């Protein structure tokens, strides 16, 4: 909530500055076009509408990012707490599986975004992501309430039959909870958490790489400068992102200092529930206000008749490995590929 307020504060500052820079019309008109008389002056309500769309987008982004960062931060603490803060094993496995899953399924999910209508993809991604997080917080709550049986490697040291490798394995999983209920919940938390992480990344791709561009075209159709509009949105989104990165762990950390971890896990669940509602309403509203979002160019196979589409799909290698190679091929064909590789190196 604080993040949202701060962002709105920033927003007004940015708006004022752009008004000053664009003279009296205050709406970023392309001045040359106005001078030529090729464009009628923007009606005030339309300008207000464009600003409103942006405000909805920022609010939704702020609550989404805040909830997501809060979850990311608290899950790493929970995973350490499950081992009685004696092992980093679970934190590492969680991090490793998150990385591997977006590495393997990243292109595949991207393809899903390209093939699906904007609003369906966005609704599916945000609903599934947040519900998985809520389920994972419930599991964390149950596991934090559960008194586990810990595995102790030294119990097995006297056993002379075990080889050096088995002993090494034992020492790795030292201090981990080892009763069946704990293992079951830990598996669920891993699967749900990792899947939610992947879905969230995909949702961000859909919004940041696709929706925002369409919004800028929408603004351009109404006489605003597209480049400036894009810069404004990108800068603001990044500012929201960084503010949440700073505030969210701080607030959750303060919460953890004063309440029990179980209370924190419930609060995180509730926060995600609020985030679902706000994101859902905002996404639907933006979609309704921007007619351009309903029009989507898809790859050529989609435009062919059904029977031919089926044929093409059968020819197309459909397993996951090929999607990845395929996605990589498309990526390499982009004019900006070197920039993308530079980004990944930083």
């Amino acid at each position, binding site marked *: 909530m604080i993040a949202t307020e701060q962002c709105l504060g920033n927003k007004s500052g940015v708006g004022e500055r752009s008004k000053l820079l664009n003279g009296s019309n205050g709406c970023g008109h392309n001045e040359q076009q106005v001078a030529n008389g090729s464009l009628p002056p923007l009606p005030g309500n339309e300008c207000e509408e464009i600003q409103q769309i942006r405000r909805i987008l920022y609010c939704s982004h702020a609550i989404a990012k805040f909830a997501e960062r809060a979850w990311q931060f608290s899950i790493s603490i929970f995973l350490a707490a499950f081992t009685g803060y004696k092992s980093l094993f679970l934190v590492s496995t969680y991090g490793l599986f998150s990385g591997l899953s977006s590495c393997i399924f990243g292109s595949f999910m991207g393809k899903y975004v390209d093939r699906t209508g904007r609003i369906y993809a966005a609704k599916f991604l945000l609903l599934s992501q947040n519900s998985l997080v809520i389920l994972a917080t419930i599991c964390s709550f149950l596991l934090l309430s559960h008194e586990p049986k810990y595995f102790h490697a030294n119990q097995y040291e006297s056993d002379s039959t075990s080889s050096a490798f088995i002993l090494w394995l034992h020492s790795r999983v030292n201090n981990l909870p080892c009763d069946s209920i704990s293992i079951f919940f830990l598996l669920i938390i891993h699967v749900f958490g990792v899947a939610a992480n992947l879905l969230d990344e995909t949702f961000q791709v859909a919004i*940041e790489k696709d929706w925002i561009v369409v919004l800028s075209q929408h603004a351009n159709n109404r006489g605003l400068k597209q480049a400036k509009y894009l810069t404004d949105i990108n800068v603001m989104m990044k500012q929201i992102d960084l503010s949440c990165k700073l505030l969210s762990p701080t607030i959750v950390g303060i919460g953890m200092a004063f309440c029990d971890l179980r209370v924190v896990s419930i609060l995180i669940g509730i926060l995600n529930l609020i985030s679902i509602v706000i994101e859902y309403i905002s996404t639907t509203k933006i979609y309704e206000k921007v007619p351009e979002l309903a029009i989507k160019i898809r790859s050529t196979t989609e435009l062919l008749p059904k029977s031919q589409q089926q044929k093409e799909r059968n020819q197309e290698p459909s397993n996951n490995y090929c999607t990845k190679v395929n996605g990589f091929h498309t990526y390499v064909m982009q004019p900006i590929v070197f920039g993308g590789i530079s980004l990944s190196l930083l």
Partner: protein
Amino acid sequence: MNVLTFGPIMTAFLVSEGFSMSLIGVLRGVSCMMGLFGTFLFKHLSLMGMSLESSGFWAVTFQFTCLSLSYFSLYILDSLQSLIGLIVGVCMSRVGLWIFDISINQLMQISVKEDVRGIVGGTQNAINAFMGVTAFALGLIFPDPSDFHIYVLTGYLAVGLAATNWYFGVYRKQPLPKLS
């Protein structure tokens, strides 16, 4: 890829050097603030009419310069001075990182065709994740905190490579079509 952020590996190293968690929290906050400062700077640069290609180039060059401070401060024998050099370099480098991030994000928004936006963004995430996993794999190979200079060196070289890559692959190339 880069371990030169206040991520898990750097945090573990600073803790092993005797830093308290609250001090690390404050440093993390400072580095975020530097990032926010970077976003404002980007806005000014773009209002001044700087192209995305050149803002990205100057940002990555700035980051490289800051990390040079981090890297060469490892050769200072006085351990406190060397740590201060490392931290100041890393904090300052955030300004460049986030300007670069917005620049490339916007260039991608402009240049990628509508029907492949998802797949290009998804693949970008996959490559980023791959580099992240590589950095952690490095942590498995060199788990000793006294090997930290290896991480600094790889991070530093990676940024150098990114800068060269950007210079030849984006900055010197035919500029992409501009928007109105």
